[in-house]
């Protein structure tokens, strides 16, 4: 690691100039990052993203993702939520199958709500924004997924 060469006046002045220069893009990103805190949920059951075909380096998976079909899996305990994302929308399934209401939420609020069929499957339109998350509401039990970039 290199030490800052601040024994030199011009070098110190150049670093100071850079440090004081406003960066509008960074300011926008900072505000956006700070606002993410408003989405903090307390006492929720979080289903973590455990598989994403886009991040799977296996050849087969890459071929599949090239076919514009993305597979994503969320898991919490024994409950799994599998999603297939295409240009047309999202096909999902909750396993073990459950009678649930599924909400698609973006950073602007709920975008769509649907119900599962007897196999735990559901269909959603293509999300309007990125990232999104799903709430799977099974009576009193609500499963909330990680945020997913699209």
């Amino acid at each position, binding site marked *: *690691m290199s030490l800052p060469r601040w024994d030199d006046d011009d070098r110190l002045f150049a670093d100071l100039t850079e440090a004081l220069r406003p960066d509008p893009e960074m300011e926008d990103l900072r505000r956006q990052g700070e606002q993410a805190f408003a989405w903090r949920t307390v006492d929720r059951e979080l289903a973590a993203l455990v598989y994403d075909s886009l991040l799977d380096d296996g050849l087969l998976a890459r071929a599949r993702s090239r076919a514009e079909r993305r597979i994503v899996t969320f898991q919490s305990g024994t409950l799994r939520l599998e999603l297939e994302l295409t240009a047309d929308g999202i096909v999902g399934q909750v396993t073990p199958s459950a009678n649930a209401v599924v909400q698609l939420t973006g950073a602007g609020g709920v975008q769509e709500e649907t119900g599962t069929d007897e196999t735990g499957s559901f269909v959603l339109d293509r999300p309007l924004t990125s990232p999104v998350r799903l709430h799977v509401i099974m009576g009193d039990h609500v499963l909330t997924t990680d945020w997913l970039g*699209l």
Partner: protein
Amino acid sequence: MEDNGGIALWVDAAVKGDQSAWNALVRRFLPLVVSIARRHRLHAADTADVSQTVWLRLVEHLDDLRDPQALPKWIATVTRNECLRVIRSGSRTTPLDDTIETPPRVPDADIDEPLLRHERGRVLREAFATLSDRCRTLLALMMTDPPTSYADISVRTGMRIGSIGPTRIRCLAKLRATPVLQRFIEEGGDPGVAAALG
């Protein structure tokens, strides 16, 4: 200067619902997120998408991070994955060079540099704020692009043209002598973050 103990306190306070502690974490680690996005050659809109996803996901995983030293690596990993996601999904806003399908993994040593540059910036801003009005005004005038002429500086500060150069030297010496800068130089940058990344 906050160390990893500071980061641990921020994480702890943010888990308990303290927005300002969360803001401090965002300010601290945003340069890391942006530097990784830039290495993946993402444009502004894609960088914003990646950045937002990283922070939204971190909000929900803060209380899983029992070891705050793991935070920079956690953020770096999620950011890299999100960059790959943008590149591979074909959803990026500006098509770039198609021959670059998968950018090389960014070695952690390379992540160090932008973060340390950010640290230097933070320390310099803190030191600058402690200087006299006279020094801050003079140095700020000299930073403009294009540079302010000595004649203009003289008019705006009431300083004789002949004393502008020597005053700049004195002001930079004062900046160098501030405790915050001296501590930073003695510690060789920011060992706390370097250790966390290492």
